[in-house]
């Protein structure tokens, strides 16, 4: 919707930003040919879940926090488990870690397939949405749905069900899959791997604007593989620290236009989490098949163009499928489905790589395990300052575009981050105010 202001000014607004998980608002102010202000307006409901967790038992966060998001419940469960286990001084056995990794692969496959095919690809192929795209690219969409279904099936196999998995508990799982169950699933993963490689090939050819950005990247890192279920924090500025020192390096601050807290790297400023950060800080530990797919797609050691995030996401689809196959092939069971976790007074941090980026949980427990304080830092709130910075630079270079086209491109720029506003907020509209 466009409004004429007095003189030559005008206001352009889109009441609903489509194809973003959740809802919110974006406001862009232009004066005298200069972008003077960009605000991602987050009207976060009261941080309900953090408040809801206070006074609950230390065993409850995996089930409670899984309800924050229907797209990435495993991320919430895994970060919650890591944090509570750290507070209680427990390290789970390698078999449990591997099974968590496998469950997380299911979530990555489903979430990335949803975003790449159903939400983001239409931007690059010139369609208003996937419904219109499907009429011309039926096989491509079917490929995406097949991938999404494979992720869904993996979530059901390991998590008990795809939405809000019920098989996860502090210390491990309620039930372990048998080696035969995982072997039987192998053909689905083999097809998913083939579909993922084809996905990289398909999206590598998408035309993208030249929009390299000087991001500071932040992600988890493991020396033995691409980060999913655990790791320590590294940044592109050379920092490396364990998750439990997150508060020493990252500050959350309230900004007037948003109810969601903005995260800043102390002494540095905004940073980016998610596929671009993970890839740039961990490409050396990708599996060989993912490295080959990335190289064939023209990705180097880093990627600083947010419009190429769709290619990196596709490479991560390959990685998730290959890691899942590796876990399936090596699975021999475990002595127990879970290890005992006895409560004790203390603070624990948990960090895992949600599909959209690092997800931090912090809990303070009383001696009997009652949760005294809970803090959840979702990836989208960490990326908000960078989304705003992207919009500022992106709009500035395109002020000559007509309103409709500028708005469409702004929406695409926001979708580069696959923002899950439902985790951070709700209601997202887009307003460009030219005066």
């Amino acid at each position: 919707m466009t409004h004429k202001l007095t003189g030559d000014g005008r206001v352009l607004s889109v009441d609903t930003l489509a194809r973003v998980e959740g809802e919110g608002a974006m406001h862009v102010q232009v004066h005298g040919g200069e972008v003077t202000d960009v605000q991602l307006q987050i009207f976060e409901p009261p941080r309900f879940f953090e408040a809801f967790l206070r006074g609950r038992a230390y065993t409850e966060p995996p089930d409670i926090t899984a309800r924050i998001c229907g797209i990435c419940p495993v991320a919430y469960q895994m970060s919650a488990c890591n944090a509570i286990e750290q507070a209680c001084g427990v390290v789970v056995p390698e078999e449990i870690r591997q099974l968590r990794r496998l469950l997380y692969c299911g979530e990555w496959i489903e979430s990335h397939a949803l975003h790449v095919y159903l939400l983001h690809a239409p931007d690059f192929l010139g369609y208003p949405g996937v419904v219109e795209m499907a009429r011309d690219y039926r096989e491509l969409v079917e490929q995406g749905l097949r991938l999404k279904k494979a992720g869904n099936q993996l979530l059901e196999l390991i998590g008990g069900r795809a939405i809000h998995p019920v098989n996860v508990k502090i210390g491990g799982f309620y039930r372990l899959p048998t080696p035969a169950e995982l072997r039987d699933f192998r053909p689905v993963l083999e097809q998913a791997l083939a579909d993922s490689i084809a996905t990289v090939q398909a999206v590598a050819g998408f035309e993208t604007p030249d929009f390299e950005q000087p991001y500071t990247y932040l992600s988890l890192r493991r020396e033995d593989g691409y980060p999913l279920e655990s790791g320590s924090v590294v940044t592109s500025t050379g920092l490396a620290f364990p998750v439990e020192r997150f508060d020493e390096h990252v500050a959350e601050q309230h900004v007037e236009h948003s109810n969601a807290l903005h995260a800043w790297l102390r002494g540095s400023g905004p940073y980016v989490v998610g596929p671009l950060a993970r890839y740039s800080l961990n490409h050396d530990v990708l599996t060989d098949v993912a490295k080959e797919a990335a190289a064939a797609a023209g990705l180097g050691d880093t990627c600083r163009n947010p419009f190429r995030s769709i290619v990196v996401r596709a490479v991560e689809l390959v990685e998730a499928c290959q890691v899942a196959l590796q876990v399936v092939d090596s699975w021999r069971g475990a002595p127990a489905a879970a290890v005992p976790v006895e409560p004790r007074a203390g603070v624990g941090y948990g960090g895992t790589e949600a599909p959209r980026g690092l997800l931090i949980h912090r809990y303070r427990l009383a001696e009997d395990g009652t949760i005294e304080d809970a803090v959840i830092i979702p990836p989208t709130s960490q990326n908000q300052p960078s989304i705003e910075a992207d919009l500022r630079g992106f709009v500035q270079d395109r002020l000559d575009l007509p309103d409709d086209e500028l708005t469409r491109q702004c929406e695409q720029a926001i979708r580069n981050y696959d923002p899950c506003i439902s985790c951070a907020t709700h209601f997202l509209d887009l307003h460009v105010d030219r005066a």
Partner: protein
Amino acid sequence: MTLVIGVGNPDRGDDGVGPAVAARVAALGLSGVRVAPTVDPARLIDAWDGESDVVVVDAVRVGLGDGPRVVSLRVDEQPLPGWAACGGTHAFSVASAIELSRALGRLPEHLVVVGVAGCDFSTGHGLSSDVRGRMDAAIESVRAAVHGAHPTQGGPG
């Protein structure tokens, strides 16, 4: 066999009416009926894949005006009307799932959407008293759809 799918998030106020109605229908033990809840509309395509008779129950956020508070719409032959945009907090809506399935030729032969007008979608809230009062009417609409009383497309009253 009819598949009844309740869509919505029980932690988002009236958005939870779909799963709530589905649970009540499951408790009735109707013969020839299977029930499934889901939070994410993007999973509908898989959920109804291969099914011929499906009823979807979801919250309707806006658009009923002074009309009925529970609507039943057959959508296998025509799209869900814009005024019946269903509730839900995610990008891929029930309407998206219907139209993508239609474009791919994967829509159930009979697909009915039962929409229940909601008013409060706040995080952490349960169903509003208004919506709780519409539950019986919603269940009756599901029963009617299950028994083949397929409604025709219509606008708000």
